């Protein structure tokens, strides 16, 4: 009863609707310039320290291979200048397998192909099994068993059954992606708030609407979270597939460098793969921001001003 007097003052209502109109919020205009400058300075420091870290590690590596080759032999451990030289040769001339862009393109095709196939299969099966009790009770044991075995060895099987072309690599990548996406989609469907389902049903949603308008949007944040990991796995699948037998690709490039005892070549290949993974990660993050713009900003990402 303590809020009675305050409440009494608040109930001025508009006569026709009975609803007081809430004024639209004003944009934030008053920001402290000083704090914004401090924030920028902090950002600058972060970038500077990042670059410094890279410089220190690379310099230590380069200097130790150059002045103490008995301890760290550049023949086995490579050398930043050698890696750089290797990259320059690859970019300007060509690799042992042909032009570099072609190797990158082949591996990218295999990765993206496997990523798409595995993601679609994972989402479809995850949603189906999350929605259907019988399906999940019957198949869960097989999925768990399949998940327990190291699936990269399937690459060997696919190399035999699907041949040495792109299909065996896509299959290997897809298998790795499938399980991660599947488990997330399944869990996402299971975690949908019962309140939301009840509300949709009361409002008149049929089973199809319930799936498309409540279950899938709700599971989407789980599914998209899994895509970050699974693109990396698709890359692993494609490269492993190439190691089992291929004529082109970055994995094959690394494989041939290894056979020539070219440590710098191995590192240069790894660097290419890392770059590809980072670009893909940026694309997925952009996709995530677009698809889940209804989600409140993550705690801690707000700027204190």
């Amino acid at each position, binding site marked *: 009863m303590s809020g009675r007097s305050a409440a009494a003052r608040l109930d001025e209502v508009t006569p026709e*609707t*009975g609803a007081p109109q809430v004024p639209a919020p004003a944009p934030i205009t008053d920001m402290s310039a000083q704090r914004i400058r401090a924030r920028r300075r902090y950002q600058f420091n972060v970038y500077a320290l990042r670059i410094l870290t890279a410089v220190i590690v690379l310099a230590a590596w380069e200097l130790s291979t150059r002045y103490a080759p008995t301890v760290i032999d550049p023949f086995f451990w490579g050398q930043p200048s050698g890696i750089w030289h290797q990259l320059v040769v690859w970019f300007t001339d060509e690799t042992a397998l042909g032009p570099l862009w072609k190797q990158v393109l082949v591996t990218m095709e295999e990765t993206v192909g496997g990523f798409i196939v595995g993601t679609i299969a994972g989402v479809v099966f995850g949603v189906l099994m999350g929605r259907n009790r019988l399906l999940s009770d019957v198949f869960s044991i097989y999925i768990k068993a399949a998940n327990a075995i190291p699936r990269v060895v399937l690459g060997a099987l696919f190399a035999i059954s699907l041949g040495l072309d792109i299909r065996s690599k896509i299959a290997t990548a897809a298998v790795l992606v499938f399980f991660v996406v599947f488990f997330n989609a399944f869990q996402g469907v299971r975690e949908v708030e019962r309140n939301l389902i009840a509300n949709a049903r009361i409002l008149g949603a049929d089973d199809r609407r319930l799936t498309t308008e409540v279950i899938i949007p709700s599971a989407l944040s789980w599914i998209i979270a899994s895509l970050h990991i699974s693109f990396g796995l698709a890359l692993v699948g494609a490269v492993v597939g190439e190691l089992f037998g291929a004529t082109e690709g970055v994995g094959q490039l690394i494989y041939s460098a290894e056979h020539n005892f070219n440590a710098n070549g191995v590192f240069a290949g790894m660097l290419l793969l890392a770059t590809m993974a980072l670009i893909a990660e940026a694309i997925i993050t952009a996709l995530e921001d677009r698809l889940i713009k209804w989600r409140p900003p993550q705690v801690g990402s707000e700027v204190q001003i």
Partner: protein
Amino acid sequence: MPPAIELHGVTKRFLTPSGAVFTALRDLDMVVQPGEFCAVVGPTGCGKSTTLALISGLEPASEGEVKVFGEPVTGIAKSIGYVFQTDAVFPWKTVLDNVAAGPRYHGTTPREAREKAREWISRVGLSGFEDRYPYQLSGGMRKRVALAQSLINEPRILLMDEPFSALDVQTRALMENELLSLWAQSKASVVFVTHDLEEAIALADRVFVISAGPGTVKANYPVPLTRPRNVTEIRMQPQFSEIYSEIWNDLKDEVLVSYERQKRSGAA
């Protein structure tokens, strides 16, 4: 005209995960007339929410009869609206799409649904917020969305499960007055579950007191206060206090029983 809602000898049992049988409601009788605003009060865990679930058709009764406008309830009835205790608006839909959901599910074209939704959004005082997502709104504003979302389907029965319990006192008084004015235009039957006896009396034509679980109707009290009401002013009328003390006498025994039980199960 048959009563809007009839429950006769209704019992609801649940199987708990440990395999034990839990009786939420036992032999419950309740009749709500068309256009009547009923409040249901009772101690925590007495099965108030379960009653709503049975009327809505979200859950079947274990025994007894549940009828809506003379028809036995077999599934989710078309003419029902339900405002949940916790947020149940869809977080991935904007205010406009949230409110338009009901008509869309009933086959209205997207354009008509949106037009109708705009009208309801202005009726609950949220004009200008159509493109916001729920996380960008305050608790009270989200409740307005939930109200518009339910009322746009023009339900003949509106079920409300402690809808305002999470709001602060001032917002709550505002929302209660708004609910009354919206209800006066719609003339739907309302079943309003609350643990707050003051809120129950201020809003309702009739207050049902449910006993400590397993829940059954202990008594029902008519509230002969005049309408239209202002929930903050009506509390100061002497008649309000009389009704309050009469019902509280009944309710407090149940609250004590429930409290003692909780203490014991907490100690065990």
